[in-house]
């Protein structure tokens, strides 16, 4: 069974989102997604300061068997990227909800966060797959 932390929000495209104290949102891919992808060998990160709209592909996670886009969960601006992934992309496999975070986005409308799926809904989504 995949680990789906209760305190996070989720998307249908298997990103997780954490609301930080300063109102920014940290984004990564779920434990379920990293399991499906297998060994991750490369991450293409967005640029800091890049504007994104909800649903834009902003990063790419490449494993030995596939390359998968990572989508912005909300409209906003990329304010931080996890540069550790450049040299150690396997952090996404090892610690998807911690050291394996991918980017942080400052939402244009803070209420967008509330629209995202909660853990139970995501659990239901992946059990249907």
């Amino acid at each position, binding site marked *: 069974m995949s680990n789906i932390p209760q305190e996070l929000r989720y998307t249908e495209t298997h990103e997780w989102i954490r609301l930080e104290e300063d109102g920014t949102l940290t984004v990564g891919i779920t434990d379920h997604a990293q399991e499906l992808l297998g060994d991750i060998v*490369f991450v*293409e990160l967005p*640029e800091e300061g890049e504007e994104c709209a909800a649903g834009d592909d902003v990063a790419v996670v*490449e*494993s030995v068997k*596939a*390359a998968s*886009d990572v989508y912005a969960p909300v409209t906003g601006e990329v304010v931080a990227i996890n540069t550790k992934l450049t040299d150690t992309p396997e952090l996404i496999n090892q610690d998807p909800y911690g050291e394996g975070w991918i980017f942080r986005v400052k939402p244009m409308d803070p209420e967008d966060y509330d629209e995202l799926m909660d853990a139970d809904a995501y659990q239901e989504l992946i059990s249907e797959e």
Partner: protein
Amino acid sequence: MPFIPHTEDDIRQMLEAIGVESIEDLFDEIPANLRAGGLANVPEGLNEMAIGRLMRERAAADARTLCFAGAGAYEHHIPAAVWEIATRGEYYSAYTPYQAEASQGTLQLLYEYQTMMARLTGMDVSNASLYDGASALAESVLMAVRANRKSKSRRILLPRTVHPAYRKVTHTLVHQQGITLEELPFDPERGIVDPAALPEAGDVTAVVIPLPNYFGALEEVDALTDWAHAQGALVIAVVNPTALAILKPPGEWGEKGADIVCGDGQPLGVPLSSGGPYFGFLCCRQPFVRQMPGRLIGRTTDLDGKTGYTLTLQAREQHIRRSKATSNICTNQGLLVTAATIYMALMGPEGLRRVAAASHANTRRLVNALEAIDGVHKLFDAPFFHEAAFRFAQPVAGLQEALAAEGIVAGVGLEADYPELGNSLLLCATETKTDADIDQLAGHIRQFGKRSDSTRPSGEFRMA
């Protein structure tokens, strides 16, 4: 895959099951204005006997000529062993195999090819080839736009000294993608881009630098490279591989070197054969490898620790990345690359240097011989490699026709692509030309000039 034939009856039954009248009906959702229709310039088919005769006649016409044309395709001596080996059954295929890893010999050959090209260009990585030099430049431009994420303009500076056909092909392949190609003019005295006259550029994504350029002249690559990098642009070198045997590799141009290097591989063991097939090469620095199109072969070790070869970084390619692949190119010019690899292995760095040096020396003789003729002037004074442009006193079409009657291909006219360069020809002499060949060319040009002088009207009163 088994061969499954269809009878007329099978086809009719399938059409009935689908509910259409004819196979043509399956395509009727494509609007008529998007259909290609007939191809006006393709002649009617010929039977085997007739096509055999036509091809023999054309081959015989090619073999008789003394060729001083270059302009992107160069006649070099090809050691007999090259095509003897390349056409062995084990190698004789145009494709990377579908079950690639089952063909270790082919993969090893491609790996050796990549190693040789990376060394020749001074780059970290080479792909397993592209279609030709022109499409390699177009792919390089697309690659630079993906790789230079700091630049938002999608503007490419493309000197007018780049091969006109390469510029046209690049335009065709990139102009629908919001990429602008902006021409850089050349200095009419020198025949190269003047680094001192470069404009205030603003945001530029990449600058293309040819070496040698279309006129055979050597651009000031160090100054151009440093200028491009100072604008935040990537540098795309488009080069002749033979020239790199004696010139500084693009990886060492300027302070930081070129970023992407491409060109046509034809000079490396591929015969002229009426214009193709040739192959394109594409090399780059390590950080850009994920933006590179085409196949890449890597060396690895298997479970038993033995060396093996494998396709690598396939996540860039269309069978995995689908619509976001770096390119829709899925195969390469395997057979031509096989010949080129054998050619380079036979020649070695020293052999290739001698080919390049002899070609340059012969072109120097050609320049001296032609400049000694009344009414013939070398167009540009920049240093050249194995090709140079000349202006003649008479229209060059007549000159080319007269020399063709003597079995000589007297270069390539420039006026069609450069209207300001009327009565001009681009001429090339590789290592295959002897002093006698050059004397023969010069002799015929001199005679043609005298004949034209004697038939020219002697006064200007006719104008009135």
